[in-house]
């Protein structure tokens, strides 16, 4: 057994690592739910390989006394399920890391450099309980007990989880968890480990959802009733979620033959009066580009959830990136306006997705929700989701006999009718068209139509979501981020602890809110932090505001920034607190 006492206060990084198919997810589900019920803040994130079995995947659960939903490098407690797992997270282990492992399974030549290794014969114990499958419940019981979760709570939860299984299996899982609890109590009693995190009982009532579910809930709140997509990691979670809710909420969910079909179906659905979306990633979106352009010329609403992953080509299918900003921004041939939203928090994903439908419907443009693998697969507790403040209202009008789909208007928006509602005819065309919607090659009409479409941008800018400033507003250095890095930059910024540094987060990256330029102007030094190698948002800011970006902090290896890594890079870039 170990030699030193590990005291961890307020913030614990727990990692479970093993190969695909070993049941990491089950342990994760049990633990996050149990820990939340016990009144701890929890944040879960995962990284995995593009395979169904084998390899090395890990899931991290951060347990803390205040909400800290961002990725840590540091591991305080590691549960490796095999030898490969240990290697997989090697660089994240220190002498302070408590490693709870079945030594027999690690296949170690020696234990050098692993002072925190404690042998727990999971397999032997599991087989004593009735089979290898019970190892997960032992591990769950063990970890839960380390955090002081009430044993009865553990048993109750497992009973519920396995309620559809045979009584014998329920009983064995209980026994397995009890065994885990017993081992943990031993470690606590011997002073091996001591965890001190303040509990807040009200957290038990919090909701626990991941990014994909938040996007899906936002869509449901918007009255989304049509989703057509083709499965592609990491975007599939949204399709799965909406399919699961389809019957309850009256949603047509269709797995299309390809992304081209999916995007064209979405546009057909909007045309006929639905509120439709697609969810896709990388190469899947590349196939949808013709649909973006079609939405542009038809002035059709379109909601596109684009979950980014590293490209080009197939790239790293299950990893994360912020590399598709320019793809979304410039996708589709021809000039036409669009909106790009990029949530940084779970709440934002739901709110922005809901509002994406309203914006798409109102302005008759494609609206993107740009997330990424990290965001989609991460989850944490929040008190609730209030989506009732803004009601999703339809902009559809009843047509009369004189109806003209593309009537030239001052603000560029032509009232949108749908076929079968009113006496008018709704004519929409991918060709340049006249006010009736019929094909034209009249070059004057062409100019009038391009200008009409572009005029919408004025109001789109006025209605843009403003960036959020974190820190004092008399800053000298401004950290700039967008999308999923929000909590990470915020935490790294707080570690930096400098009054002269502020953080500006963008949840709408195009068109930019009119205040953007003023925020940038105030700073002497501007640093953009983002997950791509081209500094795409920095480029966009330069183009749109005429302000220089002095430094960029970029990451593009397929992993998200961790708090420690970013704090270190910030310190190098701007120096420590004076």
């Amino acid at each position, binding site marked *: 057994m170990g030699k030193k006492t590990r005291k961890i206060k307020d913030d614990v990084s727990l990692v479970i690592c093993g190969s695909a198919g070993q049941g990491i997810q089950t342990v994760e589900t049990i633990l996050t739910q149990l820990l939340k019920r016990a009144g701890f803040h929890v944040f879960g994130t995962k990284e995995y390989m593009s395979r169904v079995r084998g390899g090395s995947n890990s899931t991290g659960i951060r347990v803390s006394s205040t909400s800290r939903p961002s990725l840590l490098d540091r591991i305080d407690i590691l549960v490796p399920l095999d030898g490969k797992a240990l290697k997989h997270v090697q660089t994240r282990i220190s002498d302070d890391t408590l490693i709870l492992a079945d030594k027999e399974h690690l296949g170690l030549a020696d234990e050098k450099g692993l002072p925190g290794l404690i042998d727990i014969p999971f397999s032997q114990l599991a087989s004593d309980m009735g089979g290898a499958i019970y190892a997960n419940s032992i591990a769950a019981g063990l970890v839960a007990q380390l955090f002081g979760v009430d044993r009865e709570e553990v048993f109750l939860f497992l009973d519920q989880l396995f309620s559809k299984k045979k009584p014998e299996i329920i009983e064995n899982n209980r026994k397995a968890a009890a065994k885990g609890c017993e081992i943990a109590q031993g470690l606590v009693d011997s002073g091996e480990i001591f965890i001190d995190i303040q509990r807040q009982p009200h957290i038990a009532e919090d909701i626990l959802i991941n990014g994909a579910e938040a996007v899906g809930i936002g869509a449901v709140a918007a009255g989304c009733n049509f989703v057509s997509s083709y499965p592609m990691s990491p975007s599939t979670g949204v399709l799965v979620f909406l399919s699961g809710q389809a019957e309850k909420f009256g949603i047509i969910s269709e797995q299309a033959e390809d992304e081209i079909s999916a995007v064209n179906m979405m546009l057909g659905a909007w045309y006929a*009066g639905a509120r439709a979306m697609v969810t896709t990633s990388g190469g899947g979106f590349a196939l949808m580009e013709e649909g973006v352009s079609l939405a542009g010329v038809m002035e059709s609403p379109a909601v596109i959830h684009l979950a980014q992953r590293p490209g080009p080509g197939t790239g790293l299918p299950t990893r994360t990136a912020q590399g598709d900003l320019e793809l979304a921004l410039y996708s589709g041939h021809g000039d036409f306006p669009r909106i790009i939203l990029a949530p940084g928090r779970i709440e934002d994903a739901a709110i922005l997705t809901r509002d994406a439908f309203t914006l798409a419907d109102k302005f008759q443009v494609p609206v993107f929700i740009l997330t990424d693998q990290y965001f989609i697969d991460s989850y944490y507790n929040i008190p609730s989701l209030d989506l009732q403040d803004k009601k999703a209202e339809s902009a559809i009008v009843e047509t009369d006999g004189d109806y003209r789909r593309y009537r030239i208007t001052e603000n560029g928006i032509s009232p949108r009718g749908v*076929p079968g509602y009113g006496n008018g005819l709704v*004519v929409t065309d991918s060709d340049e068209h006249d006010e009736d919607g019929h094909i034209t090659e009249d070059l004057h009409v062409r100019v009038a139509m391009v200008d009409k479409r572009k005029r919408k941008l004025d109001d789109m800018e006025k209605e843009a979501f403003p960036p959020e400033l974190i820190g004092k507003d008399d800053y000298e250095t401004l950290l700039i981020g967008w999308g999923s890095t929000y909590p990470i930059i915020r935490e790294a910024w707080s570690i930096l602890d400098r009054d002269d540094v502020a953080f500006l987060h963008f949840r709408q990256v195009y068109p930019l809110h009119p205040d953007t330029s003023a925020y940038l102007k105030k700073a002497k030094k501007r640093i953009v932090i983002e997950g791509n190698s081209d500094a795409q948002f920095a480029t966009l800011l330069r183009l749109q505001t005429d302000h220089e970006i002095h430094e960029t902090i970029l990451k593009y290896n397929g992993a998200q920034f961790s708090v420690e890594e970013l704090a270190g890079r910030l310190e190098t870039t701007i120096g420590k607190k004076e």
Partner: protein
Amino acid sequence: MEPDIFDMGEIDIAWCPGCGNFAILKALKAALFELEITPQNLVMVSGIGQAAKIPHYLRANVFNGLHGRALPPATAIKAVNPALTVIAESGDGDMYGEGGNHLINAMRRNPDITNVVHNNMVYGLTKGQASPTSRMGFKTPVQVRGVAVEPFNPIAVAVAMDASFVARAFAGDFKEMKAILIKAVSHHGYALVDILQPCISFNKLNTYDWFKEHTYYLDDAYDPTDRAAAFNVAVEEGKMALGVIYRNSDRPCFEETTTVFGDNGGPFYTRQPDLEKLNGLIDSRRGT
């Protein structure tokens, strides 16, 4: 209702004088009139090409989308509002070439739409290249030594896919073409009507006379519900059969397999998000 209900009045039509498209347009209008369909209740969906301009030449709701992509939006439109009559109409290049995957999957999904394909065995709008249905040996500025591959057989593919209605018509026979279109639009389910049509500008091989010589009508004894017989007809050498070649009325339609028209009811454009249910969904994530 007057027979001219679908007429557009004086408009500039982009087809060549003498093109078979005019006859198809006339037959379609006549069929729709006979079926008492109103322009307000009709949605014409098309892709790109000369045939795909047809929605602009009759009074209807129109979704003239992208090349090869008429079927996905047509499927969605019908699913969202089953009360509409939806016709997806384009040429052979659009439907059988660019849109091949959608064709196969529309047959699988079986939405209650009519898919009219103007099949002139050549690309007209891009000026005379081979189409998927061009005959072997057909010479063009691109296929300079003649088409070297067998033509796509839409009828055989449709029967193989168990498409619920498969017919072939000839643009040179107005009466029969109209009768076939009436049957196709009335059919409950996906209906393919492949219309053989000469291209007077770019196809000097497959002319009116050539089609007359190379086609025949199925007789009254023919049973279109016999799939094996239909397949034989679809792949037979020599003359091409005209008429309703295959029909399977037992397949459920795509829109009937969705769950959205049960309790929820009402056209989609009147529907509101159910915020009470949404709160229930959010609460279900409290895990308590």
